[in-house]
């Protein structure tokens, strides 16, 4: 203690402030208890994590996950490396499921409505009420979202036994895609897409990197296809659509078509490829009718672009993806069919998409199912409706009339685990458990299964029961035996059949193995079947559909990258504060408008406008975006919740209320892209809660790119050409003599700085490379980092002030974005983290030596030394340091609206990482706790750390495999080999000589870019 005192004494003499800020030191004034186990669980060692394999339940993709628990509490989720969908990666929504588990607004137990309010009741009473209510109701219906196969069969058998039916509704149903498969090939399925096998990918609007079908699977496949490989070949991606989603921003070329004209482009391409229809089988006449020339005007794309696109598409294995949900218009099935025909004539069916081994459980149950429900309710034959895994009051447009229909049902029950717009109307709530506390299963493809198992006891704050158990119990109360006492028994009995089919004699062994590995691959998935086109059995209209309403601004309501359909699971600060990958806006809604249109209307960023259609109106701020056609505006789903939780309520607007409630004629999917909208400025403004600084690089070499032609022409790319020439560092002889260095990570520490641990050649030097040709900008790394490192969320007001706390920031720069004509597209993503500079500007300016460079190359932050001068934040040229302006981690917010961690959200804190309070700087630490943990383990075991043993949270989560981390002094490590790439550069380093440890690999473009600089 005396050492510390001397230093502070000195500062006090200089400062002469002396206000009672004493050095309390390490005293434990408060009494802390140590609670032992009574009987210790075998699988738990205090201080060591226990992992469980399970399946994510956030969306239908069914990524296998590994759940990390500490002392019986879930603290993090990661992808299961053995699972065919996730391959170890996980998206932001998956990571945020921990906040869903610990959502403080979950129902504390069963509730029954008395005098207009939901009042708590006991489980026995709740189940009895349900049994009585269903018995009295006569016919009843269950309206459900997606569920695993065992749960679906149980719901169906329950319905059959008790006089009811089950209707599934997926808010993002790509029903037109499924119907198109049926019409084209007789396959009523959603095909399995194998993007990795394609050399050219064309998306007609499908946002496969965000919310469409299976984003993690597709992000990995896309990055492998489109990231340049060692041989210098690179897959090409062309986006055909009216609005660039995040997926679209990753394209090499953009065809900004007129709204709804995808079919025309697809058929014109098919025309070129199939020889004016000759090779299109039963579709010959249809294809023959559409040529690049005669669709050019309707699509707004010159004929030569379409022709060129078709020729490239036919060259090698290729894949075309349909319009997706955002572009789902009144002729959406025809549009998907046109794309299916295109794939067929190009020979892709059975190569890059497989109808024979489809994606099971894909969202394809559209609005028409709900229309039937409303019809039955209207006929008065439905005595009860049970809602499971769904929030239809929010997810359906107000114009659907579902609210009135639902309210008229005499007995309304919900199994929702947390309040939402639908439970607000229900008479009885029997809260389900979160999927991290539940049993279940998932089938992603024929023969490819996984089991979902509880990773912890149910969170004790909430008295919940798994809905499967409730149904079994209620069935027996109603005198029906569904063949199992608990859902676990039901699950196991179904799996007996699966186990038997593998020829395994001992079910217990099979079950334990399935639980441990998290994957059951039974094979038998038949790929490679080249389906044949059939005669269409429906009348088809391929022309662009009509849009309702006056004017020329088409309204696109699109699934959010952060929330998907956003009807559930939005009460999560991690997702609310995650900057939207396209707009970088947090918390609130916005409407995207082309800058020219905005200028013509006198609108700027932040101006409040009212969007109105015949169906409703919403008020929200404008955000100008060059990546959208001038005659289109777009609003993301997921905002405007009421009664859905303390974090999500009051944020933004629900754009679904602007839509007509119409199911597409052929498929029954909800028509999302059907109306035009009027925009009325209100004269008000608001500050956008955005983290975005600038969209353009202003001639700074932040994200230089290299053209593919330039890259392959120069096999040995000398570093001098990059401008990373030798620098002179005063390091020699104790800092007086210049030492020449190139400033590469492996050059640290420089001669003259090699004392003690710094001079030991065995000391690792941690470094990282991030491949910008693979990064898709999805921001999964941001949420993974936040979860791993207890990074606080700060609230909307603080983000607006620029005080957001993200340790990773996805920068996005427009280099070539032009909505007025078809052409090359160039949007550059860059995950910006602490660069761990060898010559860090932040280190010398800390007055208390709280940040310094460790011998193993990390720019580390010693939290307890930090006194909060923020000079380091000021000096950092990359602006990656963040400051705790308040304590964001207490039970109550320091001030209203600020970040906090109410029980049980604080259970999500990672015990391996210090929780910071106010006055402390923080930043990316290269997951130093993982590094130290691995070093501890290696020291105890007497082993050597292998390359790939230490994986920071961002690398672990990235579906695109863009991040590589390791010891750069180990010449055989992946990172050491990665920095030898011809594309390597370090951000701004030759300008400011920071010598970062983080290197980036330049994005590769098909079009020419200025080499070297940006």
């Amino acid at each position: 203690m005396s050492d510390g005192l001397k230093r502070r004494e000195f500062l006090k003499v200089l400062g002469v402030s002396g206000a009672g800020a004493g050095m309390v030191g390490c005293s434990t004034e408060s009494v802390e208890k140590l609670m032992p186990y009574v009987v210790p669980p075998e699988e738990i060692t205090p201080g060591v994590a226990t992992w469980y394999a399970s399946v994510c339940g956030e969306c239908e993709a069914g990524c296998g996950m590994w759940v990390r628990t500490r002392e019986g509490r879930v603290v993090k989720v990661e992808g299961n490396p053995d699972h065919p969908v996730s391959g170890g990666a996980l998206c932001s929504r998956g990571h945020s499921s921990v906040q869903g588990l610990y959502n403080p607004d979950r129902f504390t137990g069963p509730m029954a409505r008395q005098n207009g309010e939901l009042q708590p009741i006991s489980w026995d009473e709740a189940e009895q009420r349900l049994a009585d209510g269903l018995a009295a109701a006569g016919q009843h219906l269950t309206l459900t979202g997606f569920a695993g196969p065992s749960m679906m069969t149980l719901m169906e058998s329950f319905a059959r036994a008790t006089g009811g039916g089950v209707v599934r509704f997926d808010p993002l149903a790509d029903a037109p895609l499924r119907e198109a498969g049926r019409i084209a090939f007789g396959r009523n399925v959603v095909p399995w897409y194998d993007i990795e096998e394609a050399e050219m990918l064309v998306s007609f609007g499908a946002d496969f990197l965000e919310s469409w079908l299976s984003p993690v699977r597709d992000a990995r496949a896309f990055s492998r296809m489109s990231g340049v490989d060692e041989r210098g070949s690179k897959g090409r991606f062309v986006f055909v659509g009216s609005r660039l989603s995040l997926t679209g921003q990753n394209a090499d070329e953009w065809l900004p078509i007129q709204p709804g004209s995808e079919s025309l482009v697809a058929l014109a391409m098919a025309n070129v490829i199939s020889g004016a229809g000759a090779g299109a089988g039963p579709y010959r006449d249809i294809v023959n009718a559409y040529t690049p020339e005669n669709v050019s005007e309707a699509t707004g794309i010159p004929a030569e672009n379409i022709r060129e696109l078709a020729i490239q598409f036919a060259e090698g294995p290729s894949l075309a993806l349909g319009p997706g949900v955002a572009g789902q218009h009144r002729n959406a099935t025809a549009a998907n069919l046109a794309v299916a025909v295109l794939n067929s004539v190009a020979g892709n069916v059975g190569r890059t998409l497989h109808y024979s081994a489809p994606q099971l459980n894909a969202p394809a149950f559209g609005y028409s199912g709900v229309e039937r429900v409303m019809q039955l309710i209207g006929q008065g034959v439905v005595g009860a409706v049970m809602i499971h895994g769904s929030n239809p009051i929010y997810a359906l447009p107000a114009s659907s009339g579902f609210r009135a229909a639902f309210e008229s049902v005499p007995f309304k029950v919900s199994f929702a685990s947390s309040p939402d717009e639908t439970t607000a109307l229900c008479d009885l709530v029997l809260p389900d458990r979160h999927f991290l506390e539940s049993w279940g299963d998932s089938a992603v493809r024929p023969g490819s299964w996984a089991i979902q198992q509880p990773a912890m006891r149910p969170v004790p704050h909430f008295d919940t029961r798994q809905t499967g158990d409730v149904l079994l119990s209620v069935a027996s109360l109603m005198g029906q035996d569904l063949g199992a006492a608990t859902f676990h028994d039901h699950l196991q009995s179904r799996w007996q059949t699966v186990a038997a089919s593998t020829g395994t004699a001992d079910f217990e062994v099979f079950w334990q193995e399935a639980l441990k590995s998290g994957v059951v691959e039974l094979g038998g998935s038949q790929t490679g079947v080249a389906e044949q086109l059939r005669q269409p059995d429906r009348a088809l209209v391929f022309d662009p559909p009509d849009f309702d309403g006056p004017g020329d601004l088409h309204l696109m309501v699109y699934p959010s990258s952060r929330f998907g359909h956003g009807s559930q699971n939005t009460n999560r600060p991690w997702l609310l504060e995650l900057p939207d990958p396209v707009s970088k806006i947090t918390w609130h809604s916005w409407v995207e408008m082309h800058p020219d249109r905005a200028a013509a209307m006198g609108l700027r960023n932040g101006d409040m406008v009212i969007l109105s259609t015949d169906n409703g109106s919403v008020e929200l701020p404008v955000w100008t975006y060059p990546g959208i056609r001038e005659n289109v505006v777009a609003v993301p789903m997921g905002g405007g919740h009421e009664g859905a939780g303390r974090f999500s309520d009051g944020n933004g607007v629900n754009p679904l209320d602007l839509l007509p409630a119409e199911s597409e004629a052929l498929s029954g999917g909800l028509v999302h892209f059907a109306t035009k909208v009027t925009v009325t400025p209100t004269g008000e403004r608001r500050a956008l809660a955005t983290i975005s600084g600038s969209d353009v690089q202003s001639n700074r070499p932040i994200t230089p790119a290299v053209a593919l032609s330039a890259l392959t022409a120069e096999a040995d790319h000398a570093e001098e050409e990059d401008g990373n020439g030798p620098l002179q560092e005063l390091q020699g002889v104790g800092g007086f003599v210049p030492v020449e260095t190139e400033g590469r990570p492996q050059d640290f520490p420089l001669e003259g700085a090699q004392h003690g641990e710094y001079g030991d050649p065995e000391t690792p030097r941690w470094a990282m490379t991030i491949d910008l040709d693979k990064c898709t900008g999805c921001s999964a790394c941001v949420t993974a980092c936040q979860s791993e490192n207890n990074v606080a969320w700060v609230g909307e007001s603080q983000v607006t002030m620029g005080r957001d706390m993200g340790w990773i920031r996805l920068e996005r720069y427009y280099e070539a974005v032009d909505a007025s004509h078809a052409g090359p597209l160039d949007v550059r993503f860059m995950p910006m983290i602490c660069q761990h500079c060898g010559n860090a500007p932040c280190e010398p300016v800390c007055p208390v030596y709280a940040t310094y460079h460790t011998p193993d190359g990390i720019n580390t932050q010693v939290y307890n030394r930090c006194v909060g001068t923020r000079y380091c934040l000021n000096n950092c040229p990359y602006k990656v340091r963040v400051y705790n302006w308040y304590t964001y981690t207490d039970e109550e917010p320091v001030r209203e609206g600020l970040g906090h961690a109410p029980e049980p959200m604080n259970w999500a804190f990672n015990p391996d990482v210090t929780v910071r309070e106010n006055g402390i700087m923080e930043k990316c630490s290269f997951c130093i706790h993982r590094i130290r943990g691995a070093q501890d383990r290696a020291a105890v075991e007497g082993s050597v750390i292998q390359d790939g043993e230490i994986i920071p949270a961002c690398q672990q989560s990235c579906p695109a495999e863009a991040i590589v981390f390791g010891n750069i002094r180990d010449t055989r490590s992946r990172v050491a080999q990665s920095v030898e790439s011809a594309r390597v550069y370090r951000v701004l380093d030759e300008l400011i000589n920071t010598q970062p440890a983080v290197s980036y690999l330049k994005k590769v473009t098909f079009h020419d870019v200025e080499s070297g600089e940006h």
Partner: protein
Amino acid sequence: MTKRWIGALIVALATLGSLVFVQTQDSSETQEPEATNGATTDVVQPIAFPHNVHAGIDRIDCQYCHFSAERSVDAGIPPVRTCIGCHQIIGGTDERQQAEIAKVREYWTNQEPIPWVRIYKVADHVHFPHMRHIAAQVDCAECHGPVQEMGVLAEVNQPLSMGWCVSCHIERDVSRDCSVCHY
């Protein structure tokens, strides 16, 4: 001329002023016993568990009870089952012993954890990995003191300050890098 005097006066006053402040701090420091971990002697453990009997007379190894010390950052507190393992039979010889052991049995019967008061603690911003130190052949008593001679643990008799930790690191020539403990 005058300026220099005034300047010197200000500096002198400032120095004196802050020295007074520092003095106050210092005196409060010296009033405390050697231990800087703040726990005072009026700690009452739920059961008067004597380490000198168990670790001293009975020679039970530290890691018999503190089971996770060799494989985890935490040393671990023995679960009640460990206590009842012996004390379901051993009832104590005198009245005082019998009273305390009866408490153990009561916790076991009620299946309740014994709420021990924590004595040894380093600050929350320090990561202290027990298994690393066990693997480095550091004897438990080096940091925890002669526990086998201590009765009921109520106070910390070792410095457990950072300087004390660092001096041992220097002696044994292991890393003094801040980031091995502070991250």
